[in-house]
């Protein structure tokens, strides 16, 4: 049953593949602006599993040169919400309480974006599952 205390945009829009953007004025080009929800039931579990989107593609390739199957590159042509060639390092999956995102939405600190296309989300899911660094208990929540 949906939680009535959740902001409407989360109740109707939050799911695996949802993309959010920090509105913070502190943002610089070196900092990640977007994050992606990857777990299949964020509302029911009250927990978010997030991956971070960055534009440091070369660094992600270098860090993961022996496991390139664990990074997903996304071009603006594939997902036009991203204005630059971006990358998701799927070895980094962060756990956050849903209540914290709920508070950030209420405070207008994050902005919801169009969901990732299914084929890109499938790549991210595959890459997380391929990661030797992500614990199995998190993988089971995808």
């Amino acid at each position: 049953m949906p939680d009535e205390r959740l902001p409407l945009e989360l109740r109707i829009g939050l799911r695996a593949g949802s993309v959010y953007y920090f509105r913070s004025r502190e943002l610089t080009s070196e900092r990640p602006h977007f994050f992606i929800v990857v777990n299949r039931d964020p509302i029911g579990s009250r927990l978010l599993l997030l991956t971070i989107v960055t534009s440091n593609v070369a660094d992600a390739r270098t860090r993961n040169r022996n496991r390139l199957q664990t990074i997903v590159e996304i071009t603006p042509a594939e997902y036009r919400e991203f204005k630059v060639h971006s990358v998701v390092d799927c070895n980094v999956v962060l756990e956050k309480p849903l209540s914290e995102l709920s508070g950030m939405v209420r405070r207008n600190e994050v902005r919801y974006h169009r969901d990732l296309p299914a084929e890109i989300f499938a790549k991210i899911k595959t890459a997380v599952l391929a990661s030797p660094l992500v614990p199995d208990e998190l993988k089971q929540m995808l």
Partner: protein
Amino acid sequence: MNYRDFLEDPEGNIEPCYALAAKERKAIARGIDEIAAFERLWR
């Protein structure tokens, strides 16, 4: 805890168990910084 400390080689004549090239070290350090920046924005 600052995860960047793990990128430092051991002091003295101790051989590191995993040798990192300078490029790798910088890429890992920037990755740590990105996660830290995310955490700061999240709060």
